[in-house]
Every structure is written in structure tokens, then in C-alpha cells.
């Protein structure tokens, strides 16, 4: 194939169009090619970000564009950081993050480890397992409210069938103690395959020869697992956790459709809380400060984490 490309390139004579571009140096082309992308990202990401920072120092309300806008300094930030409701939201988010990551890592890694046995038909099963994460979280989340219905839902029925509990006696999205778990279960269902795929890539990157050497040294299977498999997969696993962490910190669509933040505000994660402040209460300035705090948190945590990740990689 490579030969044909070269001969094709060699045989064709450059047509007239070439002349017009002849004068362009590589440098000019590089700029012409990169500029639109950078321009668009500046316009749709950086400009709004700077605007958000500016708004965060004001008491602007987007539903009253003509009202006077006052510069109120750091008061928004002060109010957010001392607001107990927001700390509760943060706690709910942390709870959600912790459990989804623990469950997804455990199940995802186990699945990858099993799939790596190269049994018959693993391609088919892997494709099936991977399906949920490619679907629309909002649409899927909405349908899960149906599965979670106490009277008619499949989930309650199946749980009741296996545990003997009365399926109508509990409501996953209606009860304060179960609602966070309703989200955790759906998120785990959707995103375990993501962790699984990355672990699988990690497992496949380990050369067989290392295991063969260990086998010659009569290392037990258990020992091989802890001294070869786990450390070699760890950088991959940490990358998966980074991606899931960022995504779940931003989690919005699934939760909005699944519980809408309720019952009460038990599942009101930060994004939902922020949406409520910005687009329901229309406290735009306040919400902007909130958004900046969230962004700084994600960015800060992610940077610290990436440093740790690089250290693990170097080992």
C-alpha cells in the first residue's frame, strides 16, 4: 500500500491550483490551519470564562438585564463559602464521587481481568457491556425512573424476586436514604465499561514474557498478581479515575432526569445546585462565583492528581 501512495504521488503532475499556494510557507500554513480552532475556543470557552469571572463580582441578574448592576467585590464568594447548604451539596457530590469510583474500579478491573482470559465470544460480550456508556444519559436516566417505580418497575421487581422483599415497599428515587444509591447504580451501570476498557488496555500492554520469567522463579499466582499485574495496570487505572472524576464532578444530565436533585435536596449535586441558582433563581452573579469556585476546584484537584499520576508512571 505504501508503495502505491508514493508512486501515485510521484506520477501525478501538480495541477494549476498549486501555483496559488506555492507562495505559502509552512509557517503561514500552520497559522492558517490552527487559527480557526484557537479562535473558536477563545470565543466559546475563554471569553465566557472571563465574562463569568467578571460577573462573579457583581449582583447581576440575567432575567432583569435593565436593573442596575452593582460591583460587590468578593461578597458572592464569601456567601458561597459560608453557606451550609452548599457544603451539603459538596458532601453529596463527594459521596457520589467516592462510591461511583470505588464501584467502577472494582467491577471494571475484575471484568477486564476476566475478559483477558481470552475465552470464546469475549468480543461479543465486551461490545454488549460497552453499550450503555455510549447512550444519552438524559434519555437513559429518564427511562430508569420507570425501572425504579415501586409498583411497576423492573428494578424493584427483580430486587424483590431475589431478596424476598416486597417490591412495593421501597422507592429508590423517592426515599431520602436510597436516592443517592439510585444515581450511583445507574452511573455504575453506564460507566463501569469505561474503566473496564482502560484496564483491558493496561492488561494487554503487559508482555507475556514477564509472567513467564515469574513462573520460572516459581512465584505464586497471587504474588504474580500483586507484583506484576497490579503495578503495571495502575497508571491506566489512575487515568480512568481521573477521567471519571472530572466527568462525575460535572455530572448533570443523568441526575436531572433521574431524581432532579430530590427528594428534598438529598441528590442535589453541585451542577444541579448551580443550575438552580443560575437559571431558576436567576442569581447570575452569585452563580458565576459558584461556577468559578467549582472550576478552580476541578482544575486544582486534577492538577495535583496528574502530578501523582506522572510519579506513578515514572516508576
Amino acid at each position, binding site marked *: 500500500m*505504501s508503495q502505491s501512495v508514493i508512486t501515485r*504521488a*510521484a506520477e501525478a503532475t*501538480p495541477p494549476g491550483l498549486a501555483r496559488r*499556494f*506555492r507562495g*505559502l510557507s*509552512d509557517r503561514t500554513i*500552520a*497559522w492558517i*490551519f*490552527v487559527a*480557526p*480552532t484557537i479562535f*473558536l*475556543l477563545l*470565543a*466559546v*470557552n475563554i471569553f*465566557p*470564562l472571563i*465574562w463569568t469571572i467578571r*460577573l462573579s463580582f457583581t449582583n447581576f441578574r440575567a432575567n432583569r438585564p435593565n436593573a442596575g448592576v452593582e460591583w460587590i467585590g468578593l461578597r458572592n464568594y464569601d456567601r458561597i463559602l459560608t453557606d451550609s447548604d452548599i457544603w451539603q451539596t459538596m458532601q453529596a457530590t463527594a459521596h457520589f464521587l467516592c462510591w461511583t469510583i470505588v464501584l467502577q474500579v472494582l467491577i471494571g478491573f475484575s*471484568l477486564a481481568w*476476566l475478559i483477558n482470559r*481470552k475465552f470464546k465470544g469475549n*468480543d461479543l*460480550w465486551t*461490545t*454488549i*457491556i460497552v*453499550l450503555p*456508556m*455510549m*447512550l*444519552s*444519559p*438524559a*434519555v*437513559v436516566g*429518564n427511562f*430508569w425512573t*420507570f425501572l425504579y417505580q415501586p409498583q*411497576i*418497575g423492573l428494578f424493584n421487581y427483580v430486587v424483590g424476586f431475589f431478596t424476598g422483599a416486597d417490591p412495593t415497599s421501597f422507592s429508590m428515587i423517592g426515599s431520602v436514604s436510597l436516592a443517592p444509591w439510585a444515581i450511583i447504580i445507574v452511573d455504575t*451501570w453506564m460507566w463501569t465499561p469505561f474503566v473496564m476498557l482502560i484496564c483491558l*488496555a493496561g492488561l494487554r500492554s503487559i508482555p507475556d514474557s514477564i*509472567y513467564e520469567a515469574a513462573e520460572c522463579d516459581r512465584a505464586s499466582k497471587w504474588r504474580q498478581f500483586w507484583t506484576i499485574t497490579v503495578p503495571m495496570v495502575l497508571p491506566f487505572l489512575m*487515568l480512568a479515575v481521573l477521567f471519571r472524576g472530572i466527568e462525575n464532578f460535572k455530572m448533570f*444530565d443523568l441526575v436531572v432526569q433521574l431524581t432532579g436533585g430530590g427528594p428534598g435536596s438529598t441528590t442535589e449535586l453541585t*451542577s444541579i445546585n*448551580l*443550575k438552580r441558582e443560575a437559571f431558576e433563581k436567576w442569581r447570575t452573579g452569585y*452563580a*458565576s462565583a459558584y461556577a468559578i469556585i*467549582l*472550576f478552580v476546584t*476541578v*482544575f486544582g484537584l*486534577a492538577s495535583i492528581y496528574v502530578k501523582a499520576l506522572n510519579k506513578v508512571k515514572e516508576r
Partner: protein
Amino acid sequence: MSGYSITEPSPRQKWVAGTLVALYAVITILPLVWIIATGFKSSADAIAYPPKVVFTPSLEGYVNLFTTQTRQTAEYFATHPPQTWYERIVQSKGLTIAGPSRFGERFMNSVIIGFGSTFLSVFLGTLAAYAFSRFKVPLKDDLMFFILSTRMMPPIAVAIPIFLMFRSLGLSDTHAGMILLYTAVNLSLSVWLLKGFIDEIPQEYEEAALIDGYTRFQAFTKVVLPQAATGIASTAIFCLIFAWNEYAFAVLLTSGTAQTAPPFIPTIIGNAGQDWPAVAAGATLFLLPVMVFTILLRKHLLRGITFGAVRK
């Protein structure tokens, strides 16, 4: 590979692993099977207790999905017998079809915005990725990281100023506005993925073309682009899937004209709460293309979902 290896698992191990994975796969697919099945149930079957596994298929959900209906009197029905099979389904519940529902429109919006933004982000992404891959762009690493970092922001955080910006530019609730927005969001994925694909094409091909008198631009269009075709295609599908599934911006920045299907499907309401067969029918039609793409994309999946950070 020659026959025996110590690392090869025993047949029994394989069997156990296969069974466990198959079991998990069956549990995973169950909610999806349930969505598809519910789409073909009658309203009564959908909310039966215990949940019905065996049922008589009905197209009621699909009919409800595509039409809006009004209640009519018995006298009206006596003078207006149903003309078609779908009118018969609707009339059996004492209703008549008032017109098409907005689902078709919303679905088309998803198609227009999805394909429009995909085309733009792949087009711009290919150019930028080529430049990053082949030329000495100043601050290359910083720019690449900047492009990636645009994905870290929660959509709601930028939604406030974008909402204000679109309002003053007259872009709110328009196809053009949403296409532009999704293009920007997808650019990070597109640039990172395509750079990986283009990096893999040996530079010697272009050098050969340049020596033969091609300009840089021609070498790009005639040598690099055909070589990168599969990479471009899979990048396009990932961008399309993202734009197709996006919800946060769609629900915050559109209210009618340009609203896509994800915010619309959950709002399908029947006589008593949500009309589950219709919701399931809508979800099925909406999820189906993505399921097909996922199966086609198996090979590139890992690279696509991790921005090329991990390669299989």
C-alpha cells in the same frame, strides 16, 4: 505463535471467566432490552404488575410518539370511522389525531445540529491536528493542553455567559448557535484524536510528494487526507455521538425551535404522567443509531473515549 505458553489460561478458567462476563453482560443489556420491549407494549401492559415479559406487541407507543391527540365524543366517532390502522389505535382510546407531534421536528434538530457540528469540528480539527503534527507551532504543548482543558469546565459554568452572549447576538435557540457551540465543545476531542492518527502516517510520504513538486497544501490534501480517512471517519462518529447525546446546553440554551431530542423525550406526557410506551419508543429510535455506531466502532472505542490518551 507456537502452541504452548505458561500464561495461557486453562480451559476451566476460560469457562468460568466466560460465564461471569456473560452474566454481567446480560444484566447490563437488560434495561436496554426493557426500553425496546416497552416501546412495543400497550399502555396497560407497560404498567402491569408484575412487569410483563410476555405481551402482545402493539404499535401504540410509536403512534402516540408521532401524533398529538384530542378527546372526542362518541357521536363524533359514529360519523368519523377510522381510516387507517393508526387512527384505529388512537380511536380505541376515545381520541382522535389532531396532528403530528413535535418528536419528528426535535429528531430532525438532533440530526441537523449533530451532523453540522460534526462536519465543522472534524474539518477544523483536521487542519489543526495536521499543523500540530507536522509543523513547529509555537507553544505547541501549551496550546494542546489548553485545547484539552476546555473539556474540564462544567457545561453549566460556561452556560451563563454563553446564554447572555447568544441572547445579544441573536443566536439563542437557533441551529447556527447550537452548531457553533457543539463544534467548540467537540474540537478538543477532534484535535487530540486526529493528531494521534496523523502522527502515525509516516512523514516520508509527504516528503516524497514535496520532492516531486507538490506544494505543502497538495501534499496534505492528496497524500495525508486519504491516509487519515479511517481516523477521520471514526473521529467524526465520536463527535456525532457526543453532539447527539448532549443535554445540558440543549436544555439551558434552547426552548423550542432548535431543541434536540434529549430534552424532549422526557417531556412526553400521556393522560396519567409519562406515557411510557411513547417515551420508550422515542428512546429506542434515538438510541438505535448510537448502538449501531458503537458496534461499528469497537476497534477505535478506547481511543475515542479517552481522547487518544490510551491506545489499545
